[in-house]
């Protein structure tokens, strides 16, 4: 906005963390998402943390119904959604009550004071109105009559009185947009796209947004408005993307790069369902999405499609991986490529469906019957889910194996800027199907087809798909004779096949990037080992600890089975090793077992990511306490 009449003093900020909180029906996820998108377009670096309940609409005004969205924007590189918010926007008493503990003393609270009436206070468990009783004395509180102002602002749109206040999230967004010098145009365009077909709702939202902005400008309530400059970023075209969208696009790209049709067999489950939604939109790439009757049919259909020569995948979360276990075992035995995508959430059982966790690593590693090794690829940031999906597909196709691709609720829903890759630079992961005989029968001297004839380098078996003349063959879950693939109950053959399957997966270590040490690689007193979404807080914490004079290094794993071949040397090089993970200590156990080093767990199983501050404390503690 270039409104010159606004004389409010502009203060430059390096960064700000804003937490939007309201009732599930208040549209806080949308508000946060719009604020994020506009900030991304301004060139800020950013990270987000949507934090919402599992219930679609918990009873209005209750603590259980509070939905929050935290966004961190900065003029420099950041990798976490921020340890603590600077500003809390609370649309009702429950939101204030639920979220206030996140806000440090001195923080800013912006409330919709209209919502602080007796019934709502009562539902939130307040005996007295916190806006009146002095309990918020340590904060800067802005009381704004958002409901009344919104109703007044949207009068001319013609929406009914009781619908009018539904635009108050746009009113709040208008105020914040003014306060942080965000332009309204991108949001106006978005509102047109989203609500353009319903003139009344479109008008109401636009009026509310503009009214909120005008309120900021004219109310003389605020001493400053703020500006956060663009962060220095490498040249190129950027988009703001969340993990599930990036992962979906990575799968579409993998299909194109493999020159195979993409097939997704899936059953809806939080927080993975958005991948099914996204892929269902891209039929023009030949993507087939099959919403199956259950998790087992999801993976079963994917295996069927893999047999037919598709790049196939199934998306799920922990409970679904448990159900798919038997079919994954079959895929390991059939040696067919498939990607099993686990968007991890709090467990066990239904656990915390909308909250994040990293507690499926042991299941990914060992959660099947029999000796059934399987590669594991883990994404470490929202945007990097794109590359992780292509890498999982590459390994699956090249080695004819199911691959577990792991993400989590935080990566899935969190957004960050993404420097778009050049399509031409993406790897070629195409495969050659076998189309001719590959063996000579010793007894008859005749040429024949052996489905379990292996590539001596990769140990991948031959892959001939149905429809190939002359190569008809049968494969199954019963142990197969090495080479011919015929049923074999021979004890030595079973031992050999078990070793071959293990050697094939172990051999992938030669074909993945070496682990890279970040920080004080030569002389660190402590190594921090991480995997998955803890990357952001770990990088940030290591940076802070080093700035405070500590000698710290970190290594982050994108491949968990097999490990990068140099990982053993790295973990043995440093006197102390800690492993922060959002579980009770799963990677640390794998590292201890594999390398016999005293890797210590830093555990957090609370449904929310580590903050960098928590990890700085863990780093200091580990270095100082011995």
């Amino acid at each position, binding site marked *: 906005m270039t409104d010159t009449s606004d004389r409010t003093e502009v203060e430059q900020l390096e960064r700000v963390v804003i937490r939007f909180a309201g009732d599930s029906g208040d549209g806080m996820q949308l508000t946060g998402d719009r604020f994020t998108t506009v900030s991304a377009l301004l060139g800020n670096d950013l990270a987000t943390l949507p934090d919402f309940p599992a219930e679609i609409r918990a009873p209005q005004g209750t603590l259980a119904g509070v939905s929050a969205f935290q966004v961190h924007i900065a003029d420099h590189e950041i990798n976490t959604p921020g340890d603590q918010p600077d500003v809390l926007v609370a649309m009702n008493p429950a939101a204030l009550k639920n979220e206030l503990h996140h806000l440090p003393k001195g923080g800013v609270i912006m409330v919709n004071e209209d919502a602080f009436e007796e019934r709502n206070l009562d539902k939130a468990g307040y005996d007295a109105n916190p806006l009146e009783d002095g309990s918020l004395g340590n904060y800067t509180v802005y009381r704004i009559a958002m409901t009344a102002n919104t109703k007044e602002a949207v009068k001319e749109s013609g929406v009914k009185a009781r619908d009018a206040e539904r635009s108050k999230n746009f009113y709040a967004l208008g105020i914040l947009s003014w306060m942080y010098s965000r332009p309204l145009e991108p949001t106006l365009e978005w509102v047109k796209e989203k609500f353009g077909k319903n003139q009344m709702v479109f008008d109401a939202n636009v009026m509310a947004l503009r009214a909120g902005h005008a309120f900021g400008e004219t109310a003389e309530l605020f001493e400053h408005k703020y500006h956060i400059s663009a962060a220095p970023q490498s040249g190129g075209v950027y988009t703001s993307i969340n993990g599930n969208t990036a992962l979906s696009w990575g799968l579409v790209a993998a299909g194109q790069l493999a020159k195979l049709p993409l097939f997704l067999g899936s059953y809806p489950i939080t927080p993975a369902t958005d991948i099914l939604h996204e892929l269902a939109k891209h039929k023009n790439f030949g993507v087939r999405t099959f919403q199956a009757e259950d998790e087992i049919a999801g993976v079963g259909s994917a295996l069927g499609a893999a047999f037919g020569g598709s790049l196939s995948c199934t998306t799920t979360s922990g409970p679904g991986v448990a159900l798919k276990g038997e079919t994954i075992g079959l895929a390991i035995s*059939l040696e067919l490529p498939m990607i099993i995508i686990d968007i991890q959430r709090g467990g066990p059982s239904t656990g915390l469906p909308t909250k994040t966790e990293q507690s499926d690593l042991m299941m990914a590693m060992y959660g099947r019957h029999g000796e059934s090794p399987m590669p594991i690829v883990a994404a470490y940031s929202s945007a990097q889910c794109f590359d992780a999906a292509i890498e999982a597909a590459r390994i699956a196709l090249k080695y004819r194996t199911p691959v577990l691709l792991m993400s989590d609720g935080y990566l899935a829903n969190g957004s960050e800027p993404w420097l778009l890759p050049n399509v031409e630079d993406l790897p070629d992961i195409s495969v050659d199907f076998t189309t001719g005989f590959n063996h000579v029968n010793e007894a008859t001297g005749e040429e024949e087809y052996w489905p379990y004839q292996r590539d001596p380098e990769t140990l991948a078996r031959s892959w001939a798909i149905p429809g190939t003349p002359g190569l008809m063959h049968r494969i199954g879950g019963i142990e197969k004779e090495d080479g011919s693939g015929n049923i074999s109950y021979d004890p030595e053959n079973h031992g050999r096949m078990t070793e071959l399957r293990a050697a094939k997966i172990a051999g992938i270590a030669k074909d993945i990037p070496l682990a890279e040490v970040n920080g004080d690689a030569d002389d660190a007193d402590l190594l921090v080992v991480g995997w998955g979404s803890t990357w952001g807080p770990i990088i940030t914490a290591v940076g802070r600890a080093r700035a405070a004079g500590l000698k710290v290094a970190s290594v982050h794993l994108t491949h968990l089975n097999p490990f990068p071949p140099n990982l053993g040397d790295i973990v043995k090089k440093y006197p102390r090793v800690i492993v922060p993970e959002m579980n009770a200590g799963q990677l640390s156990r794998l590292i201890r077992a594999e390398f016999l080093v005293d890797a210590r767990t830093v555990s957090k199983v609370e449904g929310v990511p580590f903050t960098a501050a928590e990890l700085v404390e863990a780093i200091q503690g580990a270095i100082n306490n011995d």
Partner: protein
Amino acid sequence: MTDVQTQTTTAKDWASDQEVRWCPGCGDYSILTAIRQMMPDLNVSREDTVFISGIGCAARFPYYMNTYGMHSIHGRAPAIATGLAMSRPDLDVWVVGGDGDMLSIGGNHLIHALRRNVNINILLFNNQIYGLTKGQYSPTSEVGKVTKSSPVGSVDAPFNPISLTLGASASFVARTHDMDRKHMQAMLKRAHAHQGGAIVEILQNCNVFNDGAFETITKRANRDSMLIPLEHGQPIRFGADQERGVVLDDAGRAKIAEVADVGVEALLVHDETDPDPSVAFALSRLANSVTEPTPIGVFRAVDEVEYIESANNQIEEARQARPADLDALLHSLPTWEV
């Protein structure tokens, strides 16, 4: 995949080199022979034919056919076949399984494949027993059946597979038995020709754990009086002298009547193409055990929208409307340039 004219084949061409390992005397042998003999008549090629099975005695079937095949895991064959058929509509996909595989552990996949009307041919070998685990009652075993897991008799009520699959909106439902190769082949050819999900229940004798289970209806001497052949467009009659028939009572229930009592005009004329499955369902309820005259033949064969064609049409339409442009996809959200 191939444009080459399908070559003329014989039953031998459809037999794999693997030794058949069912118990001597098993009804599965006669089904295997019937299918190997029938395949050359279907005018399809071996490389475009796939048999998918689950677990159980019947599920060994794919190993014995010189086609593509997958012996998968218990109950999941219809789901695996759905993924294969959907992604490869050029293939002829068959599913083979027993009553435990299809109706117990895999019941969910069976009914959903049928209600979606996925173009696959499902062969349900019903022997009313678990064979491969050595003789426990199955979901089609009669109440009171004494087995190792029901030493004083099973208290489980059985499924009627025809009623179940009609209830799942299957567009093709037929029943045959392993003692009549010609009838079996006729039913399988009909299933193959059907565009949509087809299920054929094949009453099959397990001579080790449930010998003679269907003798009362399938033994040559008993067939005339105990099997009710369903023929499209014909009054439903049976008996050595066609002396009995099927009528619908006022409540729409199928009943057996003496033709002499009710007259030929009163007999139900079988219409397998009736879009409403009610009468087919009524026919399926005529017999709930082998002590009653049992209809065989095609209960239902209706043209309905086929799943794979619908799904792939959507893909074709999308392809026509928008090119597969990866770069455009990556730029489809708001972007900014630095």
